[in-house]
């Protein structure tokens, strides 16, 4: 306790972070992407069943209201895009309850941006340029773009798009993860989370940016489905040295489909006794009014700093991780 008033990270880290922010702002300024701010505290939140939120009570003049610390600025930023803001980016904090570990702090820093008229390939091109810019002093190996199905098959010989329960169980039994059988049961998505995070992700991006795209449709989140291959969603994830750094979509713009996905999330939350919350009707109204075709990406900057400075633990790049906050 005696030393816990002091920062957890070195002063070099403070400078690295400041420099990274400057680089990012210069990168987007040059491309005429507008920096914006959206609320950290909102009346709604994402319904993603795997994201746990912080709530607080707002003593509003008439009736007290429950407010949520944002798990990402996604909905608010899409409302700006729907309102005609054009290309926007934001450097902000995001909050996820129950997440702490070597790569997780419940409060963390995100870079999130939206590009109107970009498809997923164009977004990946820009991600490539951004990483070249952020890592210009210690260049990475050439980046890779891999389809989820290919990379999953490469490391497991399993097809992630076709859920064959028996072969998934065989794989688990023969690869020292037999507990996956009782843990995942018949949930395709849970099996993919388990096997991908244990057996595929650790191999991705050896001192290189690895972009995995064409995620299975059951993991579409807020991405649109690929019209040519509806078993896949137009979603991309970024990895370096096996560390997940970012997530992007060719955004779903259909209000009806979005509402259905929210309802699915809500049912899942009810089934598993997770806290439920009202749908974000303002976000749905924005989609109804019309979100232009766009792609968006979110990158965890604390982890980028970990990779840039070869740190083992997220606490090593934070002034005051939650234990000292």
């Amino acid at each position: 306790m005696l030393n816990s008033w002091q920062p957890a990270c070195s002063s070099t880290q403070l400078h690295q972070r400041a420099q990274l922010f400057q680089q990012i702002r210069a990168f987007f300024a040059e491309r005429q992407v507008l920096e914006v701010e959206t609320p950290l505290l909102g009346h709604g939140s994402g319904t993603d069943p795997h994201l746990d939120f912080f709530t607080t009570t707002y003593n509003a003049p008439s009736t007290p209201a429950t407010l949520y610390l944002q798990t990402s600025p996604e909905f608010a930023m899409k409302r700006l895009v729907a309102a005609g803001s054009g290309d926007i980016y934001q450097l902000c904090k995001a909050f996820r309850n129950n997440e702490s570990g070597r790569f997780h702090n419940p409060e963390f820093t995100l870079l999130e941006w939206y590009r109107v008229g970009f498809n997923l390939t164009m977004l990946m091109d820009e991600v490539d340029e951004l990483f070249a810019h952020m890592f210009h002093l210690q260049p990475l190996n050439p980046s890779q773009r891999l389809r989820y199905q290919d990379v999953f098959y490469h490391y497991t010989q399993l097809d992630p798009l076709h859920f064959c329960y028996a072969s998934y169980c065989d794989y688990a039994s023969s690869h020292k993860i037999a507990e996956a059988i009782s843990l995942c049961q018949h949930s395709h998505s849970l099996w993919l989370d388990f096997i991908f995070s244990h057996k595929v992700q650790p191999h991705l991006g050896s001192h290189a940016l690895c972009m995995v795209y064409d995620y299975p449709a059951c993991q579409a989140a807020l991405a649109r489905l690929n019209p040519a291959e509806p078993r896949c969603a137009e979603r991309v994830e970024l990895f370096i040295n096996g560390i997940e750094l970012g997530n992007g979509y060719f955004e779903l713009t259909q209000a009806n489909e979005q509402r259905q996905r929210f309802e699915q999330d809500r049912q899942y939350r009810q089934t598993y006794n997770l806290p439920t919350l009202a749908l974000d009707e303002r976000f749905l109204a924005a989609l109804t009014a019309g979100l232009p075709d766009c792609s968006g990406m979110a990158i965890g900057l604390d982890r980028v700093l970990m990779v840039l400075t070869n740190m083992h633990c997220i606490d090593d790049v934070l002034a005051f991780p939650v234990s000292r906050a």
Partner: protein
Amino acid sequence: MAIYSTNEFKAGLKVMLDNDPCAIIDNEFVKPGKGQAFNRVKIRNLKTGRVIERTFKSGESLEGADVVDVEMQYLYNDGEFRHFMVQDTFEQYQADSKIVGDANLWLKDQDFCTITLWNDTPLAVTPANFVELQIIETDPGIRGDTSGGGGKPAKLETGAVVRVPLFVQQDEVIKVDTRTAEYISRVKD
């Protein structure tokens, strides 16, 4: 017994897994950004000593194991069991050779050691890190050798065999590190 959730798992915590008492060695939080959170846990089975990795859904829990380490004095071997006593309470425990394991190489009457108790039954015996034992058999040393290089095998009163420098003689008492079975020094009376 207490119930521990995955976010309380930390090194040293004793829990029940597959009906065996185990000790947590390491716990890593693994979470795909948009997916299920897991805890990848490295765990030692205290009965077999084996270390395994096991993944849990975050928020799952395990029952705590009533496992404690107690310092005891080694009393005697009755042929089937070795007997130990807690100094303060004079409470006695017995352990068979399976439980004593390799510790038997270092146990001398009256010496202190650590007994791991599970539900008040011995689970494992750990000798003190350093013990002093007499050499009962070794080749005569070569005259003039004081370097400690080379060395020769020496059998100790407990039956253990360790390598000692050539100048160390039969009947001498030596200090040994039980974790590495290495000779440390001679003990002068």
